[in-house]
Structure formats: structure tokens, C-alpha cells
């Protein structure tokens, strides 16, 4: 049985951090986060940041109340990672494909992809951890099993979401393609974090905050 490589999460997080910093840098320099026409003046970025913060907080609290502190922390951290990374990548991609005034809505909506990718894995890990003792299955094995169990579902979900995004993108002009970019980016980011970050992040939170038999 292949194990989840504990070293992959820090590498993935470093890469994410690099991209986030790059996104912030290009946006601050005025090179990135481009909008069509005067869209930048029309977009309420402060409302977007507040909504992103609310999204992360709600995600953490829901996970905490529904499952445990470990799950809440994992979900909250993943929500923060995905939202920031999506916005950063959008800022970079917008250099080639300027955004429209609907960008904030698209970025916030991408939390749907995060939930759909991460929740099955986290629930599977939570159930395996509850059902098995440390001797039967260590955290590495639990994480690997959860990722493997849910791979088929997550892949089909990605394909169906991609079909809907492509349907939207091919229906209009380049401006519409640009408008769909945050959705496509959010979908890819959510898949990436589900595979590369969630298992190790959850293992860390579970080891620190979870009880095991």
C-alpha cells in the first residue's frame, strides 16, 4: 500500500506560498489583477476580502462543530489556502486574460470546489481513524487509504464541473473566457490541495488535537 509522503505537503505549501506572494506582488505593482475597461474601479475588493475571511471562518466553525477541532482546523486551513491561491493565480492569469466585474463572485464560489474535493477525504480519514486503532492503521496509512477511496468520485466530479465551465467559456467571446478563469483555477487548486495538502495537514492536526484508541 503506497503511503502519503509526509514531505509532499511542505513542498506543496511552499509552492502555494510562492504563487500567492507572486500574485500579491503583481497585483500591488499594477501588472496583475487586470480588468476589462474600468472594471478594477467597479470591483469592491474590500468586500471580496471580507467575504473570503467569512468563508474561511464559517468553514472552520462548521468543521469544528460537525466533527472535531482537528477537522475544523484542516478545513479552515484548506479553505484559506484555496481561496488565496485561487485569487493569486487569477491575478497572474489576468495579465493575459483580463477579468470582469464578476470576478469576486467567481472566486468566492470556488469554495464549492474545495468542499467537494476535501470533504470526502476528510470524512474518510475521520471514519478510518475512529474505526481503527493506532496499531491497525497509522495516520499515514489512513491518509493514503482515504485519498485512494475517494479518487474515483473526485475525478468524476472534476470532469462534470469542467464540462459546465467549458460550456460557459465557449459560449461567448474572450471576455467570457476570462470571466470563467477563476472557476477553472478554483477547480484545479481544489484538486491539487485535496491530493497534496489535505492528507498531511489533517494528519498533523489529528496528531496534535485528536484522540485515538
Amino acid at each position, binding site marked *: 500500500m503506497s503511503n502519503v509522503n509526509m514531505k509532499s505537503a511542505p513542498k506543496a505549501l511552499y509552492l502555494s506560498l510562492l504563487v500567492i506572494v507572486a500574485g500579491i506582488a503583481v497585483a500591488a505593482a499594477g501588472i496583475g489583477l487586470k480588468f476589462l475597461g474600468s472594471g478594477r474601479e467597479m470591483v469592491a475588493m474590500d*468586500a471580496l476580502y471580507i467575504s473570503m475571511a*467569512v*468563508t474561511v471562518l*464559517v468553514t472552520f466553525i462548521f468543521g469544528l462543530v460537525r466533527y472535531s477541532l482537528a477537522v475544523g482546523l484542516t478545513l479552515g486551513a484548506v479553505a484559506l489556502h484555496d481561496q488565496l491561491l485561487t485569487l493569486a493565480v487569477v491575478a497572474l492569469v489576468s495579465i493575459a486574460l483580463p477579468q470582469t466585474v*464578476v470576478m469576486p463572485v467567481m472566486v468566492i464560489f470556488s469554495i*464549492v470546489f474545495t468542499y467537494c474535493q476535501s470533504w470526502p477525504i476528510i470524512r474518510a480519514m475521520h471514519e478510518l481513524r475512529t474505526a481503527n486503532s493506532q496499531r491497525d492503521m497509522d495516520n499515514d496509512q489512513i491518509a493514503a487509504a482515504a485519498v485512494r477511496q475517494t479518487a474515483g468520485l473526485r475525478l468524476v466530479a472534476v470532469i462534470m464541473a469542467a464540462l459546465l465551465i467549458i460550456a460557459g467559456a465557449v*459560449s461567448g467571446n474572450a471576455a467570457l473566457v476570462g470571466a470563467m478563469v477563476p472557476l477553472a483555477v478554483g477547480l484545479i487548486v481544489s484538486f491539487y490541495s485535496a491530493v497534496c495538502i489535505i492528507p498531511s495537514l489533517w494528519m498533523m492536526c489529528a496528531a496534535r488535537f485528536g484522540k485515538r484508541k
Partner: protein
Amino acid sequence: MAKPVKQTKKPMNSKAVAAVTLVVLLALTLAAAFIGVRGMNLDNQGLYKLLAWIPTPSQSSTWRQALVPGADLGENLVQTYTAAPVAEGGEVTEEQLKQTVSLLGKRLAFGGWNSAQAEVIEGNKIRLTLPLDGTHDHAFEMMAQRGDFAFAAPDGTPFLTWEHVKQANYGLNPQDGSYAIGFLLDNEGKQIFADKTAELIGQSMQLMIDGTAVANPGINQALTEGQASLPGFNHENSVAYASMMQYGPLPLVLTHESNENGAPLFGAKVQNTVIWALAAVVLLISLYFLLTYRLGGLIAVWLMGIQLVATYFLAALVRSGFTVATLLAVWGSFGLLVYALLLLYRSMKSDLDRGRAIRQSVKDAYAGPGKVAIDVLAALLLLAVILIIVDHQQIGAFMRTFGLGVLVDLVLMGIVMRILMSNAINLFGTNSALYTSGSAKKEAA
């Protein structure tokens, strides 16, 4: 002597009940879909009608009145304005132009025109691209007024300006059909307003926009709560004035130059193309479910149909318009239903392939992966509600429609699917081959 005849109760035929239930539900679904596509006259003269609400490529359909296309997906009105400084002899700066565009965007979003756009063109000109719904042309010109708002005494001396307004809104007064403007003041404004209205009891005050009195409400008592409602406006005025109270005046004076019609921002044929493209995706997803899950797949397709009819109806009810944000809300919630169905059906298929009975596999699916679907939907519904409260602009407006779609998903997944599945099992039987395309294996002893 005649013996009494025993009256025995005949047990209800469960198959007949299941058949009737399914036929009735199917008839309701088809009727709703038919009305959704065609609309319906509610009286013989055709004076009152239920508009169609499901978007179709047909140009004669009334759905565009229920879901008014925004500037992004529909033909639009392009208004051009020339910007000039407030003070004579001053200069128009780039910063002022940016601020003007930003404020115009906020005012338009405040009025519900989220797809409208404002942009600077050719130096000192500003172009507004607005949805062409024909009812608000003058409202847009009013929105482009400078909008320096103040409350003033009867002699015209201002005593309270927009800077003390924390929040403004507008709404229909059902008693007389007029619109009212409501406002909430900050602490300093509250005190000023209370003192002045106490002073002006029995007189009136003026609502001034750009130095011109637009309303003269009478004052019967001191208003000490820091909030009030001013009735007697029409819709256009109430939207414009409330937005000016909320966001303050434009830094420049705009003069209307021209009106012309423009193509949708996302392409001339985007409206029909996106309808066809999304229909094609639904067809592909439906084929997948039908081929993989057979009778169960048919139920899934039925649920998807109900979801689209219901969510589009609710979107029309809350006047979301036909915009990219509305499509994202409707089809995003559709995608979530597909995701929830995938969770359930994959679990059911796995159990059926191992030789489990269909009823047990449905039960286990809800007890296991079904909970993931409920968690995702419940968390998104909670998020939608909170963001509606927190954000009063674009994101809140989007979450209103999206939240309704998620609610529909929860009802369909939690209740309707169980009803359809149990009746289908009662009617068609428990043969696993009806519910999965895989070969059923005997479960190992």
C-alpha cells in the same frame, strides 16, 4: 337466522400506490416544466399571465421578462457622459475619473444592476453599459447625477450631509404603492438630527440633492432614534436618492451626451449559445447516469430536471436577471445536486455489485456518503445566509440565488429522492440489474 358477514379489509396494493405516486409526481414535474417554458395566461383576456422562466433560444418566449438579461448576456443601453470638474476652472484628474467610475458602479449595484459597467473612454468621457430592460432609462441618468445629498431647514440651510449616513435603503410601501427611502445615521448624525427635528416640530425639512429640494417631509415629532423613513417617491427616485445617501456625491459633474444600443458584453450570440451549450452538458450528464445506473439513473435525471425548473423559478422570483452570476448560481447548485447524486449512486452501485439488496444499499448510501453530501450542502447554505447578511452588494446578491438553489438541492436529495426511489423499487422490483450496469457478484460468506 342469517349469520353476520365478516368484513375483511383488503390490503392496499403497494404497486398501485407506487404507480399512482410516480405518475402524479411526473405529471406535476412535466406541467411545471411546460409552464416554465411556455408561460401561462391566468385569465381569459390574457391580462394576467405567468411568465415563462426557463431560458430557451425562442425569441417569442416571455422568459426575458421574468429573467431580464443583464448587460453581460443581453443587448444593452450604452450611455456616454462627459465629465467636468465641480469647481469652474478646475481640472479633471485620473484619480477623480477612477473614483467616479467606482461610485457609479456601486450605485448601479445598489440598484440591482450588477451586470452594468462603467468605464473611462477617450480622456474625459465615461461610458455606462446598462441592461436594456426598457423601464429604467431615466433612472440611469438620475444615477449619474453628482448627488450631493443633505437635509436642510425650511430656509435651505443644510444641517446634515451624507457623511453621517451609515446606511440607506429603499422599498415599496404597500399601503399606497409609493416607494420610501430609509436611512440610518451615525452617532453624531443621530444627535444633530434629533436636535434639529425637535427644533422644527410643526414645520418641514428639505431633502436636497445638488442644492435642489426634492422632498419636503413634515415633522410631527423629534426623531431621536437616528433613523427614519421618507415615503412618497417613485422607484427611480428612491433608488437614485438612496444610493446617493449611501455612497456620497461623485467627484465630477457628468453631462449626458448620447444613448445607443450595444451588443452583449460577452458576445452578440452569447445568450442562445450558452443555453445550447449547457443543455448539451445536461444531456451528457444524463446519458452517463442512465447508462451507469439505469432506472436509478432515470430517477437522477428526473431530479435534475426538477432542480433546474425550481431553481430558475426561484431566480426569477427574486429578480436575479439573466446574468453570468445568475447562471453560476443556478448551474452551480445543479452541479452540487449532481455531486450529491454521484456520492449516493456510487455507494449504491458498489453495494449492489457485491450482491446487496437495493433497499439496504439505498439506506447505507444515505447513512454513509449521503452525509458528506448533506455536510457540503448544509455548510454552503450556512455560508450563503451569512454572506447575504454581511455583503449588500454583488456577492450577497449572488448568494441569495445560490442559497435558494442549495436549499432546493437539500430538499431533493433528502426527501424527493427517497420518495422516488422507494416508489420505483415498490413498482419495478428489487432486481439489482435494474439499478446498476455492473454484474452483481454474490457477497462472500
